[in-house]
């Protein structure tokens, strides 16, 4: 009564046409695409083992799929009412049911073994060659080479114009940073991770490492990559408005090059310390301040200082910004508890904070004329 075999054919035909139309519309973009269908090329042994485990489970799934759905397809074709097939009456078969319970159990045992041994080696962070502390901030990473007095922030470096579409997007759009993590090739690098605000996750797919960075807790992970090169990843745990803009870039370099890079970094830190008491001019501070602002503040307070009503306060015309300098410096240094306003004192140098405070006090409609020096910041740090 409710069976329309001929019209059904007509409908599926229509649906198929629709699909073809949809695909045809995509052909221009299809032709130039390189379609990544699988995990990225592994750069570490761990990632390779994960890759192989994934391949193995896919084959197993495929076999099960065929074993289950080939009979189903046969039934759908042959045992049709419209083909005049009479229904059988059976509804139980203990033997069959036992068999198809036991076989999957065996398959799972077979799968569990390689997975378990891989888990154990992923967790083995002993015998490391160097340890780097990774701290997540909304929305950047800080890398600290433990024992070496090297510490820096790694910010996204994709220009706003590219994100908003007024400039063409670069090759590494959203996957580029101002200062990458630099590590030596062929050495076991242990990462200890934490966060200063919300949960983030440090992830480089080619390494097979993804680890949540949890405020107040320390977790560790490791990788060893033999081939020098640049490897890219992203924050993998939703961490607020900047979550999509929090890339991870790791530069793997030969050990000699790593050693000279380290020397450079230490020298740079020394120059910065020497400049602590220098005084700067308004123009200089504002120029630097604008950079610091767009890297650290603009995501919430917006490039035009207007904020997002209800979520993030405006800085343009703000009482704190146009009020006393010390109140302004304090909130930047110490943040505001239970809000997204972080304590930037931990993240930024005195110079950066002096610059950004000067910038905020002298931009948009704010015209205090105040010039804040690094020494002012140092004085308010307790």
């Amino acid at each position, binding site marked *: 009564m*409710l069976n329309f075999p001929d*019209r*059904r054919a007509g409908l599926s035909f229509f*649906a198929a046409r*629709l*699909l073809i139309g*949809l695909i045809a519309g995509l052909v221009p*973009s299809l032709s130039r*695409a*390189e*379609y990544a*269908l699988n*995990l*990225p090329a592994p750069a570490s042994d*761990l*990632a390779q*083992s*994960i890759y192989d*485990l*994934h391949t193995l489970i896919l084959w197993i*799934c495929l076999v099960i799929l065929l074993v*289950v759905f080939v009979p*189903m397809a046969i*039934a*759908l074709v042959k*045992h049709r*009412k419209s083909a005049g*097939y009479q*229904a*059988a*009456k059976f*509804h139980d*078969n203990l033997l*069959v049911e036992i068999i198809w*319970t036991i076989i*999957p159990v065996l398959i*799972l045992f077979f*799968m569990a073994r390689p997975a378990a041994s891989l888990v154990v080696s992923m*967790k083995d962070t002993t015998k490391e060659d160097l340890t780097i502390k990774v701290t997540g901030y909304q929305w950047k990473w800080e890398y600290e080479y433990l024992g070496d007095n090297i510490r820096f922030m790694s910010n996204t470096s994709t220009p706003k114009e590219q*994100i908003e579409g007024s400039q063409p997007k670069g090759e*590494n759009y*959203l996957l580029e940073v101002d200062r990458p993590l630099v590590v030596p090739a062929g050495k076991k690098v242990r990462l200890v991770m934490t966060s200063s605000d919300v*949960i983030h996750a440090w992830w480089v797919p080619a390494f*097979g490492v993804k680890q949540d960075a*949890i*405020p107040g*807790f320390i*977790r*560790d992970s490791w990788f060893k990559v033999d081939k020098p090169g640049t490897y890219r990843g*992203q*924050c*993998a745990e*939703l961490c*607020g408005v900047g979550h999509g*803009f929090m890339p991870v870039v790791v530069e793997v370099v030969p050990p000699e090059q790593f050693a000279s890079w380290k020397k450079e970094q230490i020298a740079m830190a020394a120059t910065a310390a020497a400049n602590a008491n220098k005084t700067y001019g308004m123009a200089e501070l504002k120029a630097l301040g604008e950079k610091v602002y767009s890297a650290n503040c603009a995501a919430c307070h917006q490039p035009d200082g207007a904020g997002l*009503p*209800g*979520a993030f306060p405006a800085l343009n015309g703000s009482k704190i910004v146009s009020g006393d300098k010390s109140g302004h410096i304090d909130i930047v240094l110490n943040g505001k508890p*239970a809000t*997204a306003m972080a304590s930037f004192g931990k993240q930024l140098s005195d110079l950066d904070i002096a610059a950004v405070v000067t910038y905020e006090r002298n931009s948009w409609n704010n015209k205090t004329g105040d010039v804040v020096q690094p020494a002012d910041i140092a004085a308010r740090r307790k």
Partner: protein
Amino acid sequence: MNTTTINGAAAHHDHDHDHAPAGIMRWLTSTNHKDIGTLYLWFSLFMFFFAGALAMVIRAELFQPGLQLLQPNVFNQLTTMHGLIMIFGAIMPALVGFANWQVPLMIGASDMAFPRLNNWSFWLLPAAGTLLIASFFVPGGAIAGGWTMYPPLFMQGGIAYDMSILAVHILGISSIMGAINIITTILNMRAPGMTLMKMPLFVWTWLITAYLLVAVMPVLACAITMLLTDRHFGTHFFDAAGGGDPIMFQHIFWFFGHPEVYIMILPSFGIVSTVIPTFARKPLFGYVSMVYAVASIAFLSFIVWAHHMFTTGMPVAGQLFFMYATMLIAIPTGIKVFNWVATLWRGSISFETPMLFSLAFVFLFTIGGFSGLVLALVPVDIQLQDTYYVVAHFHYVLFSGSAMSIMAGVYYWLPKWTGHMYDEKLGKLHFWLTTIAFNVTFFPMHFLGLAGMPRRIPDYSLQFTDFNKIASLGGFLLGASQLLFLYVVIKCVRGGEPAGNRPWDGADSLEWTQTSPPPYHSFVTPPLVK
């Protein structure tokens, strides 16, 4: 079976002075399981379209790299509310709607055990729904930290966060009351002769689901209450600076959250296990093992929660335990799929719309099960956690699983509920459009996740462009196709070929012994089940 007769008599007695008021008051004051079922179903359809519209905007933003339509904070609000509303506003109420309509009809009861509680369970929903929708319009906008509400991010929001906590509390109360009602109805009001092992499988799945609800909704309530007190009353449950632990929230949340996903799929198993035998014209294969499979899935669902947390960095023993337990779930799930295929085998199969949706369910849900198995392997999960692969996984189990089984059930029972046949031709068109568009939308997401695209990002790097375009186009078609669903349903409610008592020749449960639509008070005298 004493109670049954007593209840039957009581319903009979009521009959005389329980004439339904007309107009709006009929719906506001209704204690009738059919009216309330209808309300649940319309509510969930509305929420389905609302949350679906949010998804359309999300897909439009993700059509190409760069920020075009939305600021990231609005994007995060949309993904969060899409998930929250789909789960609590669309899928769960739809399934409770089925329980309201079908459980009494299928066990030969005159109504639910607690009709007034039933009214209250429903009318809490619009209140919660209004709070959720209104939260978009308060300063700061809706919650934006993901439907999983992880602190400390969840501490950083405005008033919408408190409104949503309140809404989820209300939804939870509604679910618990609904569940208690369903349990009591099933245990006490079955027709004489209907032993537990003679109940239709749909009733079994709902019985077990209701126990899951009673067990885990209070856990969710605890978790969000702790969030609330952390936000406003100076507790530090999840704040490391005050001696708390943010990861503890995830443990509590997923202790609720994993059973929750089975709350959304077990009744679907029940619907599909009803539809397939009907159109295969052959009894369900392995009824007893189906019941045990559902029960063991429900049990296992309590001991797998931390598979959502493999990247938080648990000890090896923890990771291994939760990996093994998760893999175990694949066994009863597999048994169900095997049983459905065995039911089809040597049946006399026809392909009406409910059957098409059920067959697609069996195939596509299994694909979701496979990706679940892939994710169960800790090392592979570490690569795929929080990527589009997980998005693909849960849409295969929740859209082609729960949502499409709900559509199967709607087409299957609409003739019973309305007394009219739906438009079979349009129903089939809806099926094909939905199935094709669904796969075009979500299959490429497996590739995106494998290639390394994180979930919950408003913008992506260039390598992900093409699959995102395909997914967006598929998504628009999928969204548009659901308007056809709405049209078919409205058309069927308004009129159509009379359905007769039993429009499906292969159907044999009790509801088909009633007229279509069934009388306002059905089974006033309980039927006798041999």
